[in-house]
């Protein structure tokens, strides 16, 4: 299956991209996506990452479905 991964702020700088299409196996979770990305972008593991799936905060162990949108970002700092 494929998922879209979005990056913002610090994570976008780290990955050098704002959006990636990623192939993942059926048991993929947000956490496994992060592990997969960290091979190419080890600096990603230095951040404490928050996860959203389809625009909602989600647990790292949530199973992903085909076509879902996963966002990886650092603790928010708006205001």
């Amino acid at each position, binding site marked *: 299956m494929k998922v879209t991964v979005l990056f913002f702020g610090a994570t976008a700088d780290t990955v050098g991209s704002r959006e990636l299409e990623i192939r993942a196996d059926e048991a993929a979770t947000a956490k496994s996506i992060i592990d997969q990305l960290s091979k190419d972008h080890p600096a990603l593991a230095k*951040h404490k990452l928050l996860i*959203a799936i389809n625009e909602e905060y989600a647990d790292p162990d949530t199973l992903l479905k085909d076509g879902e949108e996963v966002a990886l970002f650092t*603790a928010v700092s*708006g205001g």
Partner: protein
Amino acid sequence: MDYTELTTEPIDITSVARRVVPPECGATVTLDGYARRFTKDKQTGETRETEYLVYEAYEPMAIREMQKLVEQVKSEFEIANVGIVHRLGKLEIGETSVVISVAAPHRRAAFAACEWLIKELKRTVPIWKKEVFADGEVWVEGDSQAPAL
């Protein structure tokens, strides 16, 4: 008459405050947050001079999270209407980054609700601030953990 907006244009505080006022209300409390020139580093105690800020959002999710805050605050406080506008993009020093206005029949609830909203916005709404200094820049990471799921 509630609203939640993201904008790259300068924010007019008065107009934000006034759009939330129904006729049975007598008080509006408004929080105006803005780009500050000097920031004290929490660890070193040193003061740094900021040249400008850049705000970025996960826009559709930010709007959803702001709308959730509005629903929650209206169920927990005796208030009438809420307006939240957050600016995105580059902000010069002194420009408003966020305005939260709460109108209520009685001011006590307006104060409490407005204070609650800015605290929660800083914890849950996916917006990030980059501080740009003379000699570098940094994406600010918030203090908070992920919101309870």
